[in-house]
């Protein structure tokens, strides 16, 4: 007698169901035409530098074909999943085939090398592009949301192309930049204007059917994508290119350079003393034919990363490559007999030799340790390191295309005031006579001693016997009287040093260094000439990276002080015809520095600021957070599932129904919005017939006079067993694993 159905009563209350439109109207031909033109322009613009003419023709054909076929497929009612899967599969297949044609030897033999390349290009830019475009076009017609993808494709191609033009790298397309440059216009402005115009055009084209807010949001989204592409390419593509430009070399040129260097080595009498030249002079080489790089743009030769803050006392950092101490008739030459405190071999990670240590010479009471990482860009026969390097250890090369060597350096730099060094002899007692003679040998020319005697004669009587003070006086003399110029090389003289010192006093660092060394030695001060780079840090801004240019090549004297070690004792001529020092390219410096720091070990393992941005930490935090969410979800799920077993009797009608609904929701059976509980129970009666009774118990408990908890739990058990019987075990398993099914219980 209660079998009255609700159908008659509820018929009017049900919302009208609208049938899916049988015919699918596509966009108008005009709109499609404009979109086609824009896609052709943007994509061909992007692909032009990337492929051959055949590939371009294939791409153009593919674009037109994709537009036409996608429209046809859409109006003929192709289903969306089929279109997407088909398009993507076609794309993937074409890509695989293209790779096969390109890489397979037998195909290359069949088609010829050129034929294989053309076929591969046609497959990739014709076939794969067709698949992708077809998918995008189909989606764009079926949903307004997907037209955004079209717009983004245009934005991507334009940004991708124009991103090549940063750092004034005027690569492609040349025709714009060349035209702009020849007319005296900054091409950046022209290109940026074009990019903005094209992007706005794309947005207006694709967003015009939307409301204002949506259009703005889409624009923001597109800009974010554009910036993302820009940044991505920044990392992946442009940097090495910029780098080679910064060096003024391409990789080919670099290898040419190496060849010429080896040629130079073959012609053994090249006077290539400068570190930038690389091959340190052997015996018999004159150091004076300094092969200065006179090109306008100096070449970066190395990047040094400082681990700690360190400021050089005079603002000049000395990076030593080699020392010359063996007197050789007119000049000092490199000789391995005694200079064991200078490391002249690279540390080799591969050979397992590990760190290379120098013979101890520097007293730690007067020095402090400064750790650095050096990444050499130009080839050097000896490692370049901040004076006075005591240990070198190998590092992984972060980018072998850019850096020729990478190693960590521990240097002992002089700490504290020079005055602390006063009152000490130069030559320690423990030196052998040979060693003493080695570091004190001077030319057989009495003028050196005579001049130095005159210089030290006026010394304050208190310091008359202090060798450091004598050295300072000599240094002051050279600084006051000397004139720094590169125009006078004195190379024609038999003794260039004498020619400089007793002649015009015009010369460059090698002359100053040798003059000072010989004057020191004539006063009994052990000295030698160090060769490397002197970097003036007073003209650079902060930052822990230091970029060394080839133009910083330098030679300077070092003196020995007993109980302290070797001390850098450079001469700074007051008169000079040199232009102010080159301003360091900050961008290049930081760029190369950052590249160097990508090295995972980088010698910076003990540095707290290892990575500028804690990506890994963020990643782990996200993973941890997700894990926590998952655990919480499972916790709630289990709690809700077990609640009927030990919940209070008064709420049993709630716990039982909730647990039953959770089970159904886990396998995807949920009540729809607006559906009453009873109707839902009737709908799922095939799965769980007892759910109707459980629903009634729940409603009676919540809205009526209450229920018997034992009866309720009996019905719940019935529902559970029905669920087990009627739902496939695999589905139940998945349902049990589903962590968020309970969230869909309503």
């Amino acid at each position, binding site marked *: 007698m209660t079998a*009255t159905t609700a159908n008659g009563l509820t018929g009017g209350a049900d919302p009208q169901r609208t049938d899916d439109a049988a015919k699918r109207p596509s966009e108008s031909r005009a709109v499609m035409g404009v979109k086609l033109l824009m896609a052709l322009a943007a994509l061909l613009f992007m692909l032009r530098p990337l492929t051959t003419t055949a590939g371009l023709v294939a791409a153009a054909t593919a674009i037109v074909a994709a537009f036409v076929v996608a429209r046809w497929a859409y109006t003929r009612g192709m289903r969306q999943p089929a279109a997407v899967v088909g398009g993507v599969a076609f794309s993937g297949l074409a890509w695989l085939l293209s790779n096969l044609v390109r890489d397979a030897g037998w195909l290359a033999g069949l088609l010829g090398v050129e034929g294989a390349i053309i076929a591969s290009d046609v497959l990739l830019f014709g076939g794969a592009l067709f698949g992708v475009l077809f998918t995008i076009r189909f989606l764009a017609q079926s949903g307004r949301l997907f037209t955004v993808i079209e717009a983004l494709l245009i934005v991507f191609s334009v940004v991708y192309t124009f991103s090549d033009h940063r750092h004034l790298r005027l690569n492609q397309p040349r025709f714009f930049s060349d035209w702009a440059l020849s007319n005296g216009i900054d091409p950046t402005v022209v290109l940026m204007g074009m990019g903005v115009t094209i992007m706005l055009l794309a947005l207006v084209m694709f967003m015009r059917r939307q409301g204002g807010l949506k259009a703005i949001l889409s624009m923001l989204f597109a800009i974010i994508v554009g910036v993302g592409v820009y940044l991505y390419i920044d990392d992946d593509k442009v940097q090495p290119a910029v780098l080679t430009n910064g060096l003024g070399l391409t990789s080919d040129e670099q290898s040419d350079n190496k060849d010429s260097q080896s040629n130079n080595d073959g012609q053994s009498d090249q006077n290539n003393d400068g570190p930038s030249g690389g091959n340190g002079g052997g015996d018999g080489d004159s150091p004076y034919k300094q092969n200065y790089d006179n090109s306008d743009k100096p070449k970066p030769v190395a990047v040094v990363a400082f681990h700690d803050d360190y400021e050089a006392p005079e603002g000049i950092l000395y990076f030593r490559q080699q020392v010359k101490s063996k007197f050789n008739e007119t000049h000092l030459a490199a000789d391995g007999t005694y200079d064991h405190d200078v490391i002249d071999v690279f540390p080799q990670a591969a050979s397992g030799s590990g760190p290379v240590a120098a013979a101890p010479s520097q007293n730690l009471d007067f020095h402090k340790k400064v750790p650095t990482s050096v990444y050499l860009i130009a080839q050097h026969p000896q490692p370049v390191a901040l004076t006075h390097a005591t240990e070198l250890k190998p590092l992984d090369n972060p980018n072998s295309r850019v850096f020729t060597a990478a190693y960590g350096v521990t240097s002992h730099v002089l700490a504290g005031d020079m005055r602390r060094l006063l009152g000490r002899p130069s030559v320690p007692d423990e030196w052998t006579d040979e060693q003493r003679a080695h570091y004190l040998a001077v030319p057989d020319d009495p003028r050196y001693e005579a001049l130095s005697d005159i210089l030290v004669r006026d010394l304050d009587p208190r310091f008359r016997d202090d060798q450091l003070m004598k050295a300072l006086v000599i240094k002051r003399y050279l600084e006051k009287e000397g004139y720094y110029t590169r125009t006078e090389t004195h190379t024609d003289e038999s003794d260039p040093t004498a020619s400089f010192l007793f002649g015009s006093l015009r010369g460059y660092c090698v002359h100053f260094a040798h003059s000072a060394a010989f004057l020191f030695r004539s006063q009994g001060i052990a000295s030698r000439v160090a060769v490397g780079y002197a970097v003036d840090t007073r003209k650079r801004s902060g930052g822990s990276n230091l970029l060394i240019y080839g133009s910083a090549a330098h030679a300077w004297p070092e003196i020995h002080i007993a109980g302290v070690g070797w001390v850098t004792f450079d001469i700074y001529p007051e008169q000079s015809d040199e232009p102010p020092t080159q301003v360091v390219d900050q961008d290049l410096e930081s760029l190369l520095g950052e590249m160097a720091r990508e090295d995972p070990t980088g010698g910076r393992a003990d540095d707290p600021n290892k990575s500028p941005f804690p990506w890994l930490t963020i990643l782990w935090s996200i993973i941890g957070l997700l894990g926590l969410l998952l655990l919480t979800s499972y916790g709630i799920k289990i709690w809700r599932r077990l609640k009927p077993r030990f919940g209070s009797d008064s709420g049993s009608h709630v716990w039982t129904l909730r647990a039953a609904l959770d089970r159904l929701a886990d396998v995807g059976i949920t009540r729809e919005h607006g559906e009453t509980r009873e109707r839902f129970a009737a709908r799922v009666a095939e799965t769980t017939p007892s759910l109707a009774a459980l629903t009634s118990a729940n409603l009676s408990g919540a809205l009526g006079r209450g229920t018997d908890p034992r009866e309720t739990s009996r019905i719940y058990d019935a529902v559970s067993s029905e669920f087990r019987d009627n739902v496939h075990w695999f589905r139940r398993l998945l349902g049990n694993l589903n962590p968020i099914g309970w969230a869909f219980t309503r």
Partner: protein
Amino acid sequence: MSTLPDAHDVAAVAPPTPSAGPSLSMTADKAREVTSRVQAWMSHNVMGRDDVIELVLIALFGDGHVLLEDYPGSGKTTLANALGNAIDDDGHAEDKLPEFRRMQFTPDLLPSDITGVMMFDLESNTFHFRRGPVFAYVVLVDEINRTTPKVQASLLEAMAEKQVTVDNETHQLDDLFFVIATQNPLDAVGTYPLPLAQLDRFLFKIKMRHIARDAELEVLASWGKPRKATDLPKASRSEILATRRFIREEIVVSPHIHVALVDIARALRADKRVIQGVSTRSLVLAIPALQTLALLRGRDYVSPEDISDLAVPLWQHRMELVPGIDDASLVISDCIKPPLEALSRATLRG
């Protein structure tokens, strides 16, 4: 699947009903048995109209009146007649009332034609009230919109107050007084459409649709054959009244249901498609109807399902819609969803 508590539970809490009518102890089973007897009578006589029969049954036991919007010749009179026949006067009244009367409203009808007139009795030299056709248990008012507002108003007083006033003298109608009014939805020429205020007095407006093909065939097949209606048991007047009282007192209406009803009414008033929303009276009238449906469904409490099922006939005639919006049922089905969802959520809260 009935979850009704055991019969003796309900009987235990059911209070005696000494006030009006004969005292009759009622149980849920008995109450449903009474309703089913009436329903069986109507179902036996009217084919293919189970939905309308249920609504009429709800109105009868929910103490309301119904307005049928229907085409001529669709079985209205048959239905009303069957209802009247299902009721048996168990002789409570001092003078016997007819179970069923039918009035055809015409433009020249006068109020006294339906309520009755004072007639002068020559024998006793006094005026006697002569009852009109409203003095019956079930009254069928055909084409209620064809008569003048004056007549309509007098009928509406009878419906709302269960009394008629003639010559300043008030005469009570029977407690069971139940009106089934009809109007033709299309043939509107020369009619006096009922204003909203008067439509509000009907519990349901039932839009009838043509019956199904099989039911229509059955009508033709059974036409002219004598009906053995007498076999069926009738429900007596006192049983129906007792059932009404039982429903009023024993079917639980949770405060959650009240909340949902008020929220629905507010949603209907706030809807942009509605000019004038539903009245508070409609909510008051709705409660007995919901209780009756709950009883018919075998429950002792009103559930969200009842609201969902009765919403359209309850409210569709009580609203004035913005021009251009024709279908009140769509508006209603939109507006009842959020409150019913809230109600469903409330039942899953511990």
